[in-house]
């Protein structure tokens, strides 16, 4: 019975779509007036160069710190400087302060900019 049922079917199981595919608007065709800010989460590891130089010095001098004071100083200066700049950047971004001519904008800054100049239609 099965075979005959299949044979007698007049149409194919899945219809072939008609050539000009009708367009369906699933989401509204415009950009949102804000960005989510997920893209900001990229992490760059700081002071890797200084760290490797310091560790190489340690290995050379049997892990005594007096002989590597220069390398240690540069590493720690790099790290504290990185922390300070990160803090300044974070504070700035939290406020959403815009400086004219800035190339790399944070998500907060982009949002303030978009709010200032909304796209009217």
């Amino acid at each position, binding site marked *: 019975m099965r075979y005959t049922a299949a044979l007698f079917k007049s149409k194919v199981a899945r219809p072939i779509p008609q050539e000009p595919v009708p367009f369906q608007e699933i989401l509204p065709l415009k950009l949102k007036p804000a960005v989510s800010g997920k893209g900001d989460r990229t992490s*760059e590891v700081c002071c890797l160069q200084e*760290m490797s130089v310091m560790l190489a010095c*340690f290995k050379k001098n049997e892990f005594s710190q007096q002989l590597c004071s220069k390398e240690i100083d540069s590493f720690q200066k790099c790290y504290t400087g990185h922390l300070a700049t990160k803090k300044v950047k974070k504070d700035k971004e939290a406020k959403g302060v815009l400086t004219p001519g800035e190339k790399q904008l944070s998500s907060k800054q982009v949002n303030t900019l978009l709010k200032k100049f909304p796209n009217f239609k």
Partner: protein
Amino acid sequence: MATIKTLFNKCQILKSKTPLLSTFIQQNGMSQYPTYYINPIYKKDALEALIKSGEDQNLKHIPTRAALNNQTCSTAHDDLVNLFVNYVMKDGLKPLARDLVAQSFESVKRLQLEKYHKCQSEEEKAKIELNPKTIFYTAINNCKPILHLTPIKRGGVRYQVPVPLTDKKSEFLSMKWLIAAAKEKDSTVRFHLQLARELIDAANNTGRVIKRKQDLHRQCEANRAYAHYRWS
């Protein structure tokens, strides 16, 4: 006119310190002081510096917390020693912890004096540091690690990643290690004596705590390939 101006300034300082809500709701945890109370300045030199710069006029009429009972302007008061006492303390027995640290300073002095008097020549005598507080400071400074290892999970595997330490954290670790080393002893040896020995050893860049720090650095060196797994 000038008085009105200064009054106005003071009002502004107060205003900036008081959030509107805090007058109704205490957002300060268990503290009995509202958030706009400032910490007291109890050290003499800090106070003198404030008076010299003229900033004390701004703080004059801002409500201030009472000083804690361990905050004194005494010349014997030392922040780092106080912190160390707090780390030594167990179950809130602060007088005991303070006594232990004081006793260990005395032992440091005794041990160093013994060495001093055994010396034959003046040059050798000049090399020996007799002040227990400077020995304490150099010991803690020498025991500070620069890097440590944190486990970071990447692709289902836990890697031990070398990470730089902040100054505060490294200070904490060095104190913790010194106390742990002093506790690791025979039951016949007193804690303060062992602590004194460890302090002197660490000040001379030898001993168990220094070795522990170097071991940590060695491990960091071995795991340096994973350094780029760090978060920041």
